[in-house]
């Protein structure tokens, strides 16, 4: 489970893509997202998917994004199967399944390469209220902690004879109760403690506190920004005016 969740968790890596300003990373991810939605042929959507994976290689995060794709393959298969059953045809069904993979991969690319601090900067930059930014970023930061809690709880319950991998679907769901209750209780307790600790350190005493980090676009950010815009516009042009055989 942790292996799969790693597909959406930031990991500090030295790579050209990680060095980019988070706003540029967001724009690149959004462009891929939009291209995935706009693509209506297998060739087009495959090109988008391959481009995302090429950037993942550049960002030294292919393995992590591969984890996301491993989980997404199940859903992609479901999308493919359902569309096929309801008579959409092989090529169309495959296009929809690949589109789903491309959308998930573009989102994963952004989250894997953008730290919670950078997320916070972006959200502040687009003028989202501070309390919402704080709540969101804290939730993201706590994902690894909650995952760790989950494993410790699973260990504790397995040590008392709980078998999570046995039984039918209903039994397995029921067996999750001893995991979920301590997890939820711990999370609620932790959030209360965090709120108290934040207030004890003056959270909310000033509406616009200063920040240690400042986002500043450098020459390579501008280069990537304009290059990506150009490619995005070019891709849309091709989508519109070029007829793909399939």
């Amino acid at each position, binding site marked *: 489970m942790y292996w799969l969740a790693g597909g959406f968790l930031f990991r500090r890596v030295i790579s050209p893509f990680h060095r980019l300003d988070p706003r540029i990373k967001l724009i690149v991810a959004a462009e891929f997202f939009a291209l995935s939605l706009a693509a209506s042929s297998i060739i087009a959507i495959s090109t988008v998917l391959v481009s995302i994976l090429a950037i993942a290689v550049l960002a030294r995060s292919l393995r992590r994004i591969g984890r996301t794709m491993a989980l997404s393959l199940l859903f992609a298969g479901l999308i493919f199967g359902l569309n096929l059953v309801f008579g959409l045809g092989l090529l169309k069904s495959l296009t929809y399944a690949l589109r789903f993979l491309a959308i998930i991969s573009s989102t994963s690319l952004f989250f894997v390469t953008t730290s919670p601090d950078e997320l916070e900067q972006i959200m502040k930059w687009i003028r989202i209220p501070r309390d919402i930014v704080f709540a969101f970023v804290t939730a993201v930061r706590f994902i690894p902690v909650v995952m760790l809690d989950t494993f410790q709880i699973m*260990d*504790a319950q397995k*040590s*008392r*004879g*709980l*078998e999570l991998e046995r039984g039918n679907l209903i039994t397995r769901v029921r067996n999750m109760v*001893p995991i979920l209750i301590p997890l939820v209780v*711990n999370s609620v*307790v932790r959030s209360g403690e965090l709120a108290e600790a934040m207030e004890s350190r003056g959270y909310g005493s000033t509406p616009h506190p200063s920040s240690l980090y400042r986002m500043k676009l450098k020459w390579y950010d501008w280069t990537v920004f304009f290059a990506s815009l150009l490619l995005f516009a070019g891709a849309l042009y091709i989508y519109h005016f070029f007829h793909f055989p399939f």
Partner: protein
Amino acid sequence: MSLIEFRGVTFVHQNGVTALSDITTSFDKGERVGIVGENGAGKTTLVKHINGLLKPTSGTVTVNGTNTRDVSTAHLARSVGIAFQNPDHQLFSDSVENEITFALRNFGFEESVIKKRLDWALGFFGLEEYRKSSPLVLSGGEKKRLTLASILAWDPEVVVLDEPTVGQDAIQKEKLAEIVRMLHSAGKTIIIVSHDVEFLWTLQPRLVVMKQGRIVGDGPCAKIMHDWPLMESARVTQPQLVQLYDELQRRPEGPFLDVSAARSWIGRRSE
């Protein structure tokens, strides 16, 4: 043959960090063992191998002659009970009695046996008055006792206590030491992972010292605790009594012959 045997056990986490390196040791039936070492030394990782929560990357762990790779954790848990450090990681039932009987039901005990074991555990750990209460409203010390009760209720052959004294006051620590002595006299194998050297000193177990995933010291508590270079390298403090003894050894009248001589000397002085 020992009850628990580690042979050349190495464990590497998914992230590539080596938590245990070539561990070879054994724990006999009825033995009382303390495991000490700095944070991240591999103490908890080591004990998680005993009930199969973790399987070695290389090497073998056997419990009662059974390779832990060949059976499920649920199977091993019947004979190995682990009480984890944080009670909040296991308490989930709507009442204390359901919490205690959770494992008994998982192991398929008969209802009459469950009732007997429940009554014994509630009485032994002083939790009778909370029988119908939610475990979540208990104090820290009571929660800790409840986790122990929920482990000992099924009478495992091996009892592993991970940091049992964390958050416990002096009285609770004494009670805990008493429980450990009682379990020992009942022939249980007890393994205690702890940073609390004072607590371990009162129990005088065989002491295993870990550092960076390796066992760097193993022997009687009194001998190991006196080995200052070893303790210092493993970042474990010596018990105050041992520190005092070592100080007194340097007194002009000459060293004491052993700890008991020092203890009686201190007793005479305090009178």
